[in-house]
């Protein structure tokens, strides 16, 4: 049987054409079929929800909002775009293809454009094949990665960065100083990198106390690097020394209130 990707479309209330909505829920033919999840504004889409959607086995996630510079909520679409950009970087860390996520713009009146966006994305996802997280046996490593990414996406560091990005880059901080986009991206990339690894470590030792060596091997990282993260995690009160086996200290996760 031909592979039919399961694609979730997060579509804003103001740009979803009636035809696509109907095709989604009834047997109307001739319009692209996509599993529509309506939201008032694509700005509503929490990165955690997108990751959850992938964890549940979606082969692709398509976010469609109003055309910038228009937006029913002035700039909710641009807020969404920033979140999706961040998410793509975060997802690529987990081993899942970031091409399974896309954001695009259309108006409710542009059924043709809608059709094109959906079909293009469907072809792209079909070429990638079924999601490693779908089916009977999801890829455990990638799933662990997505779970770690969910924690990161729900945590304040990245959310603060994404939330403040527009203001810092375009309007400047309280002193009126603007941050360059490149500079900001560097900070963002670095934060995604380190927070993701820390989250993985934290989740791993939550399951089973592990040594630095063991963690490094599991994650395919330099032990020095792992140790640095462990130091930070201990400072944050997320990790503690469990015991020492031979010469190796074994770490355990702490429950966070």
């Amino acid at each position, binding site marked *: 049987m031909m592979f039919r990707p399961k694609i979730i479309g997060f579509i804003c209330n103001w740009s979803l054409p009636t035809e696509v909505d109907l095709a989604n829920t009834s047997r109307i033919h001739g319009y692209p079929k996509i599993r529509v999840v309506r939201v008032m504004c694509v700005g509503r889409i929490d990165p955690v929800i997108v990751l959850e959607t992938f964890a549940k086995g979606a082969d692709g996630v398509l976010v469609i909002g109003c055309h910038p*510079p228009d937006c029913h909520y002035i700039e909710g679409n641009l807020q969404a775009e920033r979140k999706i950009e961040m998410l793509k970087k975060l997802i690529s860390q987990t081993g899942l293809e970031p091409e399974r996520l896309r954001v695009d713009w259309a108006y409710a*009146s542009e059924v043709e454009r809608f059709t094109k966006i959906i079909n293009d994305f469907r072809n792209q996802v079909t070429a990638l094949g079924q999601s490693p997280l779908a089916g009977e046996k999801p890829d455990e490593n990638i799933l662990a990665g997505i779970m770690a990414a969910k924690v990161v996406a729900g945590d304040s560091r990245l959310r603060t960065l994404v939330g403040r990005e527009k203001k810092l880059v375009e309007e400047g901080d309280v002193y009126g100083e603007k941050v360059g986009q490149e500079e900001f991206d560097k900070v963002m990339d670095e934060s995604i990198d380190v927070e993701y690894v820390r989250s993985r470590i934290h989740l791993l030792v939550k399951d089973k106390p592990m040594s630095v060596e063991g963690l490094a091997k599991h994650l395919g990282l330099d032990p020095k690097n792992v140790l640095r993260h462990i130091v930070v995690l201990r400072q944050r009160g997320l990790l503690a020394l469990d015991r020492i086996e031979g010469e190796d200290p074994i770490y355990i996760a702490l429950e966070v209130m």
Partner: protein
Amino acid sequence: MTVVSCAFKNKRRLPPCRAACPADVNVQGYIALLQQGKFKESVELIRKSMPFPAICGRVCFSPCQDACSRKNIDQPVGIRYLKRLAADIEREQGRIKPDPIPKTHSEKVAIVGAGPAGLSAAYELVKLGYPVTVFERMPEPGGIMRYGIPDYRLQKFVVANEIAYIQDLGVEIKTGVEFGKDVQLDSLRNEGYEAIFIANGAQVSRKLGIPGEDLKGVFHAVEFLRHVSLGKTVDVGEKVAVIGGGNSAIDGACTSLRLGAKEVTILYRRSRNEMPALPHEIEAAKEEGVKFHFLVAPKQIIGEGGRIKLIECLRMELGEPDASGRRRPVPIQGTEHTYEVDTVIAGIGQLSETSCLPSILLDERARAISVDPLTLETKIPSVFAGGDIVTGPASIIEAIGAGKRAAVSIDRYLNGEDLRTGIEEEIEETIWVKDWEKITKKPERYTAPHVDIGRQKVSFEEADELLAKTKEVAMFEARRCLECGSCTECLEREELCEADKAVVDETLCTGCNVCAVVCPIGAIKKNEIGIAQVDEDMCKGCGTCSASCPERAITMRRFTDAQIVTNVIAALGREFA
């Protein structure tokens, strides 16, 4: 689609368009539905506030458009055209006949005059469950909409269709019944009508009051238009002079052209700027070839053999502003000049026919019925009046507003409630945009691909395509709306709705201010102890703050994260055909 579910049911912070509408039509709501291509739903929403979407879509003077905030950026949203299109699409595709509304009240209500005010009151009352009978003197209902506005502006079938809707709901209209002759206040009471609403309008033209007015060939605009509407032949000859600067004058001029007049001139005693007619009507008249002479007033009409031949006029100049705020025209002596004419149409205003009414109802000049402006009660209990008979010649939309207010009063009166409680409401205009610069500084908006809709003859397939394109253009036009009100109150959805509100968990909030930064409306501010506070009157329920809060301290009241995840799981599990 329950009304109660909307959090803003009784709120009166209205967007400018709705605040400007005398009939309180939810403009922003139906524009929002049109943005999504919901043409039928938008007509239904208009019908919640008044029964004449197609009529107002054609001839309303659209105060909503004048108030539209969009005018501060470029042009106001074409609200009237959108309303017309939505209503026309509904009619062309076949209006679904509504079921009659069950009569839950036994008290009968009589309405005098089937014009916009009378029919609106009947519409509101029948919706409340009252048995309503409308008495109309003319052979067809509609009043000024049927007999006063010429066909090229408002087709008769459009009026008939909208009145049929009111009749379908259960309003009885008795035509050919003249108040004061066939029925009286007393006779209506004896027939068991417990409340009476008088809305017989202003259907008599004001006289010129100059010599020669009785000559053959002198018409008065309202009567002239009524004659034409009734299908009677009117010979206007070749040269027509129309006196006056209002809509009736313009209508008289354009109708004369259609009756075969070669040269139609409008004589107006003030200048172009003071003309009370709608600007686009004036433009259209000009395009059709109507000539305008400003600052002239007729002095006398000179006839020959009982038939009109010349009209003698005086030049005017503008003096001090009068009570209407317009500059008063002052005649310049010795500037008499004449025009050769076959017909003169006087469109200098309308009066109400008050001779049929009991004198106790009338004001001291016996020109109108005097009422309590808030409740529309007359001096006789159980008798109410509204529309042009009270205000003097005004507009259709104002008459509709009066009809609605009368319906509220009559309902209260029949239920023995106080008529005044809570009637006077304060309406505050809101413009929710926190930062105008954000909108005005935006690069040019994404614009619709151009569609040329001409009046070519088309096949059925092409007509379909044309309709689709027209709809597309309309949806883009609707998108120009800035959505000034916090909630469109379209009452369309339950879970996914602008009446959704953000809620801050104060124990989790750290006061980081991210929500205030991302909120496009400025509905979130920190309080004195640094905790985020949502202004519920402002919040439009988009949820951007909830998706951005670093501490995940903000949730939506209805459309929670858990709800979205549930929807995602349901969507993933759905089998496609």
